[in-house]
């Protein structure tokens, strides 16, 4: 059962007894009503609604969805494509998969509304290769929707046709980056493109204007279409509208995916109240609030943050509201909503070694700093965990990370540099003393 503090839009029916992924079940719960309503309106009106809603992309960057749509080059005469980014590869994030597994038709409806709003004739769902069941569910849902005339030619008798294709990736983190994803979709190595000039809104899939949206974002579009942009904007806080899916994992009593009004719940309440606090006899040590690429927060840190109205507040980690702006003000980011919790049993160097191993494995290898830097950082942390740490390794790690961030083609550079930068910055003492630590933790031996 949902926690009383939750506000469920996307997860409204999720986990309801008897709620299935089938079309009849979805229709019985009011499915595709929003689509029907939408196709009766002008596409421009819908874009306005989304703009009014203040919806921000849920993929990680938090870019305004309405603005993204307006940036699309509609004058080129080329077809416009919609790509649904279901390549949910960020460690600690599992919300899109949950949506697809529990309510695929909601996504399909969101896609169709978006397609109508942007007059897209072909939409691609790029789903991660590791989600075979999700892909099958989506394919099934699309077939059902086509049978119900929600997808395909002449939708709902409007004369508007749109096809959705499911494309399964081959399993690379970089395919979650929109231009890398586009390359992959085109059948090439997913080397991210250089921006500028290759903004998808202008030169996207097959050099045509392309919209790339996250699964959660598109689900929100459905709700915006249903309730209206202004109503949606009233949910959550100013500039962080709507609800937010948070995926809590790690050392809490009740990990899971929760949906809250954006910014209405603090990190402390989320972890202690909703998720049941730390494991018995343990204390929270650190938390990564927005997927593994976001910067880590150490419990005990204080943040002086200037609010929108000009007042200064002094927050501890527990007091940070879970929205894009507050987390950014505290030096980290909302990202994809993957909250990774670590208690005092965690060997922080080993944790970083784990993350670095991931990033070294996932670097595409296109540009130099990330390609060589990520592997170097992995080798350093792996060596440290292996018991060959040197006191200067922390500083070296930081320096290597500094050489990556901001100098790469795609944001992966930051994604792999930020964890290292923040880990070393906030747990510098542990890195310095790692060589002389008294008792290597079990995680260390496991990693080594």
């Amino acid at each position, binding site marked *: 059962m949902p926690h009383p503090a939750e506000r469920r839009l996307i997860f409204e029916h999720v986990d309801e007894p008897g709620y299935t992924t089938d079309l009849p079940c979805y229709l019985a719960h009011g499915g595709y009503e929003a689509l029907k309503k939408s196709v009766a309106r002008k596409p421009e009106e819908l874009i306005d609604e989304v703009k009014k809603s203040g919806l921000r992309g849920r993929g990680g960057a938090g870019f305004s969805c309405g603005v993204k749509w307006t940036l699309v080059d509609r004058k080129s005469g080329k077809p416009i494509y919609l790509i649904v980014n279901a390549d949910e590869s960020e460690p600690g994030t599992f919300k899109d998969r949950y949506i697809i597994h529990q309510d695929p038709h909601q996504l399909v409806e969101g896609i169709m509304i978006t397609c109508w709003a942007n007059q897209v004739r072909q939409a691609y769902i790029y789903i991660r290769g590791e989600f075979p069941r999700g892909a099958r569910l989506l394919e099934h849902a699309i077939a059902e929707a086509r049978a119900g005339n929600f997808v395909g030619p002449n939708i709902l008798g409007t004369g508007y046709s749109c096809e959705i294709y499911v494309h399964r990736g081959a399993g690379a983190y970089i395919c979650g980056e929109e231009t890398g994803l586009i390359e992959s979709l085109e059948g090439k*190595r997913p080397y991210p493109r250089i921006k500028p000039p290759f903004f998808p809104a202008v030169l996207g899939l097959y050099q045509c204007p392309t919209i790339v949206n996250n699964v959660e974002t598109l689900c929100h579009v459905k709700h915006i279409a249903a309730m209206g942009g202004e109503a949606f904007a009233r949910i959550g806080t100013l500039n962080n509208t709507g609800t937010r899916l948070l995926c809590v994992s790690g050392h809490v009593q009740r990990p899971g995916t929760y949906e809250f009004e954006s910014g209405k719940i603090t990190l402390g309440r989320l972890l202690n109240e909703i998720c049941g606090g730390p494991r018995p006899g343990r204390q929270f040590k650190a938390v990564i609030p927005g997927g593994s690429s976001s910067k880590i927060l150490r419990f005990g840190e204080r943040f002086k943050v200037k609010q929108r109205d000009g007042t200064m507040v002094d927050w501890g980690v527990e007091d940070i509201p879970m929205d894009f702006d507050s987390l950014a003000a505290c030096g980290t980011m909302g990202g994809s909503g993957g909250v990774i919790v670590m208690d005092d049993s965690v060997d922080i160097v080993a944790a970083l070694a784990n993350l670095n191993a991931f990033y070294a494995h996932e*670097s*595409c*290898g296109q540009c130099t700093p990330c*390609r060589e830097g990520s592997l170097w950082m992995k080798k350093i942390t792996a060596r440290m965990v292996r018991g060959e740490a040197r006191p200067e390794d922390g500083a070296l790690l930081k320096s290597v990370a500094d050489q*990556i961030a*901001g*100098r790469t083609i795609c944001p992966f550079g930051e994604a792999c540099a930020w964890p290292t930068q923040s880990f070393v910055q906030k747990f510098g003492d542990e890195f310095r003393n790692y060589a002389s630590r008294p008792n290597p933790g079990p995680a260390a031996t496991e990693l080594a």
Partner: protein
Amino acid sequence: MSSALKPADLITVTIDGREIAVPKGTNMIEAAQVLGIEIPHFCYHSKLSVVGNCRMCLVEMGLPALDPATKQPVMDPATGKPKINWVAKPTIACFTNASPGLHIRTGTPLVRECREGVMEFLLVNHPLDCPICDQAGECKLQEQATGYGRGYSRYIEQKNVKPKRTLLGPRVMLDDERCILCSRCIRFSKEIARDDVLGFIDRGSHSTLACYPGRKLENNYSVNTVDICPVGALTSTDFRFKMRVWFLKTTPSICPESSVGVNTEVWSREGVVYRITPRRNDEVNDTWMADSGRLLYKQVTADHRLREPSVDGTTVAGAEALAQAGALLKAGGVAIVGSGRSSVEEQFLTRKLADAIAAPAWLVSRVGQGDGLLISADRNPNVRGALVTGLIKTVPEAELTELAAQIAAGKIKTVVSIGEDLTAAGLGEAQLNRIAIVYLGTHANATSAGAKVVLPTLTVFEKAGTFINQQFRLQRFAPAVPGPQGAADDLVILAGLVEAAGGGALASDIDGLWTTLASEIKPLATVTYQNLPATGLLLDASDFSDLPFPEDETLHFNPKQ
């Protein structure tokens, strides 16, 4: 090139505080080069598409701040110049094209730090085996590590292991550990050679250059990937481990492979040629050349090279052979078979010889399949030279049928062949038995074997001269190595023959000859050998515009235009 542009097409950009006007869209590496500012780079190549993956060319970029209301540039009251908004993150110069008001800075601490960082990253998994690497000495990684690197290593981990000695094709060897994944070779194969066989496999730092399974990098332009490889990852199997480049002297030359006239550098040491590489000429061959042309230097030391003058198969002194040839010429009934492989100067002297004894002259054509890139159908490098100098009046044919008929008619008793194999040119045993042959050439063949007088001459690598290519572009080549002891410069022999035949004394040195050339050949009136531009000189070809040349379109030549 830029002088042809109207000033309106130029836009002003500011590099390190210095302004320069460049055509719109010029990228910042090229623009900075004009100012003499070097922006280091690995993956960028002016003739290939830009990918921006090496990140070596990071610079700071700024654009004039615009007033949001008026869209006019905001002026800085302090300097009176537009205020510049500098982008916080560094930007790659190779993908930053000139736009109005663009500012870049290449010498700031941030840029320096970026370069140091990228150099360090490039070197951490590089094997640093410069002592055995053929690229050492012309390696951009070495140069830029010296110029922009830290000078020390902080890397103590195990380096990546990748395949070494992978044979990508018959002429290209790959050492993956040295590869910095700049993808120049991939782009070249795809975009220039149109043979998309290369690609990366694996990912991240373990990325490895490889051929498409079952394919090989064996197109006739494969060695260009070796040239453009900024490190020693791709090496030429022919040049591999032969000599360090810093010992080699380069001599500008022209590839005699076809009438394209590819500009080349000949790399030699102590009289031995080690390799040939393309020399950039944006009007002819850009920075490329065919693999087949690179091997032509082997003819210098070929076994069948003619090394001694001979008369009736007996080795004699040069002067005696020349005297024998002169006697034959004076006897009359002489025909001359010139060569499309001779230089303009030699063809001019050949014409003089023909004039002196009123001998008819022919050329033998060599036509093959053009590849549309840098090998044209006409495999003689200098047929147009023979036309310009007046040695012949029309495009030559492959068979000397007219000569054969004249021999059969008994009009011809002596044939002077300039390096042409008469047997291959259609003269049969019956004709050859009736004539005495004076053969001037570099290599032995059936004709030289049966020649009365053989006068060994020099290859294109051993002499100075000029060729006129298919565009009627006069291009110069210089001697790279000395010729064999017994061989003499073609010009000396020809001038000697002219004199022996009573044609008067002509200069036999290149500069002296050019004064005669300039005065006698109208299109060359203003030219001397020394003042020829490095990119060659385009001659007026209107006199020959209706001749049926065999060439099709190549890289910078379109016969239909």
